[in-house]
């Protein structure tokens, strides 16, 4: 039996996937370098700068840095965010943060997306995403 049409289907999916990847890059800030779009080295790797604030007694408190016990969770989210853009879900980092900081009623995660602007050839901030995650249940 000749399976060439099946092979063709495999090749067509492989060939068209980068179109999907480019759409993800442009709509959800997925890294141009990642997800098998063959866009490695196509531009300066975009940077997703992740910052956190907490809400205590109704006031936002800017943190001097990431609490040391949350360093791994922070790094994990920052890495996922750099590759997956807005597909990366910040809720796990927020949950861990609220577990570690019982006095906080909410955590605000702010992500600046920085990338090369091809017109000016400068590295610029293109957008800021802000996620506010409230404590929904008492910390056990």
């Amino acid at each position, binding site marked *: 039996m000749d*399976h*060439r*049409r099946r*092979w063709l289907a495999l*090749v067509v999916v492989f060939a068209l996937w*980068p179109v999907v990847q480019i759409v993800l890059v442009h709509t959800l800030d997925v890294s141009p370098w990642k997800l098998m779009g063959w866009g490695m080295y196509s531009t*300066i790797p975009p940077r997703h700068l992740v910052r956190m604030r907490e809400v205590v007694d109704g006031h936002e408190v800017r943190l001097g840095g990431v609490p040391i016990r949350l360093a791994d969770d922070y790094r994990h989210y920052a890495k996922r965010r750099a590759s997956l853009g807005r597909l990366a879900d910040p809720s796990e980092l927020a949950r861990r943060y609220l577990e570690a900081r019982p006095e906080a009623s909410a955590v605000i995660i702010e992500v600046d997306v920085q990338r*090369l602007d*091809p017109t000016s*050839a400068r590295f610029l901030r293109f957008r800021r995403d802000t996620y506010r995650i409230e404590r929904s249940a008492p910390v056990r």
Partner: protein
Amino acid sequence: METTDIQVEASGEADVLAKAFSSIGTYTDPELDSVWGEWVRFVALAAPLHLILARFIPGTSPDVGESLAIVAAAALCGLLAVATTARRAAMALAAVTLTVEACIQFPETPNHLYLHAFLAMVTYLGFGADRRERANAITALRWIFVVVMGWAGIQKIVYGAYFRGEYLAYITSVKPFVHDALGWTMSEAELRRLVAFGAPSVGDGPYRVDSPILWIAGIGTWVAEIAVAVGMLFRAHRPKVAVATFLVLAVIEVFMREFVFGALIAGVTGLFLSVGAMRLTSRVVLVGLLGLVLMRVFVPGWSFN
């Protein structure tokens, strides 16, 4: 180098899709067995070398090859492919091992790891009951070359960082070995300005220099990638296009140090060539990868990054 691709004859009624797939050609008997055996060994042996290289050379593929179990499984598939006749099992193991590693690394999986896993999977699928499946697998692998090189070039157009040397200016600013290699193409003042940026932060730039050589190099990169992808569709020119591909890959290796990607693509390039040239290509590539691993292991402090 002569190409030996012979199109698989269409069976039965005209099938446009099947013909479209076969249009890039494949090998037929008696070359097929010889090429197939060599290709399977190439993919299987490249697996452990890939992972060991990633594990022991910092900065190549962060975290790839960290799991000793994965590296051991890759080594086993290389051993199976070379020392036994269980080549199908070797390829199944390679496909599974590389796919598991790609999943472990997700979403940071480097593209060359996806590529290697996909090559192993396609090769495994070529071990069908019907021998024509091997010929079809080689046809698919040739298409993979066209797709990967074509998209690598198109993506550089999409992001607009290769029209006036922007990306090259950036790597000049962050990679000392590129700074040394490309520094002569621009004025000292420009070079100092770029180096002062370091890792980019908001407002840095412009990543553009008044250097026609750098502009030509940038444009030439994507033009060359697309040209070799398209060029391989024309049978008469394949030997020349293969040589051009090796040159493009050599330049990429010098500036980007993306050795595994270069090695895999060079191996697939061999599948467009005569049996002898294909065999030579795959062995030279494997020896090159092995050389890099040995340099790292036996020359203290040596690194190419």
